[in-house]
């Protein structure tokens, strides 16, 4: 496999895989540490100093492997691993939804008639032009409290961010539909749906997969951003963005608290970008023809 020979891809994939494992195994890991993400430990805080953790490096100890959260004393290791669940889960669901919507709209626009294309393209332009962060904030602010927050976040991020996938799919579809094998399929009497499924979709795999690999980290940033702005998941559910948000007031008093979620977010994003780059290099035909 050429992919595995790419050093960047290997490193990225390893870290990304580790993060996914951490997220999936969050309850197990927290249980192994003997902690949970919501219990307060007021005895571990210096209340007179505003609630900074007692002890060195944000209160790191045998019991609290990454220290405790300033102001609450909640175990940071448990919050980090549960936070990974939210950050990765939301980003993943959002990406899948974005790809699905984008594929559907993009192929419909590429294969449909002039009118369908014109209308759908305008819709895509609209989605791309809307200031999505502002809209996401207002959408999340008006939704009733009872709705499951992480799913809602994923849905909102997806609904506001499928424009790019749709556009790429449409332009690829427009090139693919002029290929001889598509013409042959049409002449043999295949309907548009069958053509889309059997002839076009396989050709879209490479560009869409690469794009999706880049979308995932972007969605993580959006989730972190929304949680940072206070419209993300609700407390006491932890998320890295939320932790970063509360860390802004602590970064001098307790640097560990900002370094942990910040560093992990950076690492995860970097790993996914490396994976996407690796994929692009292998899947992009122009890249593969480059003389080495």
């Amino acid at each position, binding site marked *: 496999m050429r992919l595995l020979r790419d050093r960047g891809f290997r490193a990225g994939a390893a870290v990304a895989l580790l993060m996914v494992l951490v997220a999936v195994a969050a309850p197990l890991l927290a249980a192994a540490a003997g902690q949970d993400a*919501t*219990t*307060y430990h*007021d005895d571990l*805080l*210096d*209340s*007179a*100093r*505003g*609630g*900074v953790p007692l002890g060195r490096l944000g209160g790191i100890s045998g019991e609290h492997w990454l220290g405790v959260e*300033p*102001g*609450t*004393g909640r175990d940071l290791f448990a919050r980090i691993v549960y936070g990974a669940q939210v950050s990765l889960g939301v980003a993943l669901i959002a990406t899948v939804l974005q790809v699905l919507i984008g594929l559907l709209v993009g192929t419909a626009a590429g294969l449909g008639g002039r009118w369908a294309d014109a209308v759908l393209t305008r819709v895509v332009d609209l989605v791309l032009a809307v200031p999505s962060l502002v809209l996401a904030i207002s959408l999340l*602010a008006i939704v009733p*409290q009872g709705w499951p927050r992480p799913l809602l976040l994923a849905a909102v991020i997806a609904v506001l961010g499928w424009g790019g996938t749709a556009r790429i799919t449409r332009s690829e579809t427009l090139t693919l539909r002029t290929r001889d094998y598509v013409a042959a399929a049409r002449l043999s009497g295949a309907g548009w749906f069958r053509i889309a499924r059997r002839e076009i979709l396989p050709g879209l795999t490479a560009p869409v997969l690469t794009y999706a690999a880049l979308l995932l980290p972007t969605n993580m940033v959006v989730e972190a951003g929304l949680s940072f702005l*206070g419209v993300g998941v*609700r*407390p*006491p559910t932890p998320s890295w963005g939320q932790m970063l948000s*509360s860390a*802004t*007031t*602590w*970064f*001098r*008093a*307790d640097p560990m608290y900002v370094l942990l979620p910040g560093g992990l977010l950076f690492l995860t994003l970097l790993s996914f970008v490396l994976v996407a780059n690796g994929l692009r290099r292998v899947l992009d035909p122009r890249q593969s023809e480059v003389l080495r």
Partner: protein
Amino acid sequence: MRRALPVVLSGALLLAACDGGGGGQSSTTAFDPASCQGGTLSVLNQGGITHLDPARLYTSGGGNIPSLLFRTLTTRNRQAGEAGAKPAPDLATDLGTPSDGAKTWTYKLRDDVFFEDGTPITAADVKYGIERSFAPELPGGAPYLRDWLQDAASYQGPYKQPEGIKSIETPDARTIVFKLGKPEGDFPFLATATQFAPVPKAKDKGAGYDAHPVSSGPYMVESYAPKKSLILVRNPHWSTKSDTLRYACPDRIEVTAGLDAAVINQRLVSGAGQDANAVTTDAVVGPEQLAQLGTGGPLDKQVARGEFPATYYLAFNTRKAPFDNEKVRQALSYAINRTSVVNALGGSTVAGASTTFLPPQKALGYTPYDFFPAGTTGDPAKAKAVLAEAGLTNLTIELTHQNNDAEGEGPKVAAAVQDAFKQAGITVKLNAIDSTTYRDVTGKPATQPGLSLQYWGADWPSGGPFLIPIFDGRQIITAGGNFNLAQYDDPAVNSEIDAINALTDPAAAAQRWGALDSKLGKLALVVPLAHEKDVYLFGKNVKNAVPDGWRGTYDLARVSVK
């Protein structure tokens, strides 16, 4: 007392805010008000200076910045600590003479007080200033006068009803008489509000007066850009002879608004250039500075600590299940972990655990009690036992809070309460409401949730403005703006409130307010969580930044930068 906004909020709306004022203040040499004059004082604030019109300001004790511009009939006496919780005569020669069982209050004005243009201040100017505050065009002031003055409830201000308020009489240029609908012993406290500042009728431009209100205090407006900046210069017609309470040390005061609290505190710590001469009236210290305080470092000389009387509490709606059940309210009172709440509010330096609704100020009548002892970290076992007694298991409740932590009623405190109740087997669902509409939702009995985080600050240091809006059954306002969130109405309590209101001796009143608070505490109508402590920094060249006992903050009329 009705729509009385908690003072932290109103403080942010005005220019004044509650700050620190109890003890740890470092004064090196004796401060001499006679030789402190000179220099420029910078005020770095978060809150916008939204209004300057005295009719539109909601202040406690006349506010901090407003008090530089406006003299009122009485004002806070600007003393440190407990002694500071008393009014002192300002424009008037004394605190007022009550008659007719405290239903009539008569004031004599000084004869050496002038506006910034040299015109003498008369009783008619004070009366006109009060009448303006009734105008619907000029909203924002404290609502007490409308309640208290005889037959003034429907008065629409001098623009629509130029005949004025009949229950305010000015028999001569130096005398002003207030006729009240019921006895109010706290009138001298109310007379510190900016609504009691004189306004010359000839200079009144209605809503446009906001741009340049005519000064009666030591400073006047040089330039003013709402929510941005305010520059004050000396008023040549004010003199220390007529006003011994304000020292008016700096020659010039420059207020900058709209700054971030962290930025303000960082600038006060670094003290570069003019920042060495800077203060703030609304940026409480953050964790960053708290970590440096008390270490013997240089910052310990730049801090003022005080206590503005205010309580953070959980408010029950006793008309809604399950909070109509006294056992449930008691169980929650036992389960609360006040240490977590204090930490969520910023730690023990800026908040202290409270088991009483009245904050621990003697002037308010503070009487210690703890009917549902929860210890420092809660008593979940006792809470479970009380719930079991009531035949309740697996209780699930909803806690309503603001969507940000700016006012201490946000997600941080809510999450701390949630965790404490979880220990007692009670599941808490959190319901965040946008802070701008929070009071609209909680203040309307039709939309009021069963349990919410609340804050109450004293409009003046007395038990009345603390207990009346919260527990007087006649103060349940169905139209909105309600603060009697328990919707508690007991005729015996109501008549005790009337009886205490009639007292003109603050000490006697305080004792009875304390007894009333204790009596109400037994009913678990609220869960008191914590009281406010105020810690404010000031620039390294600033002198005499002594917190006063009324507002818990250093007084801009007394600080010096010379």
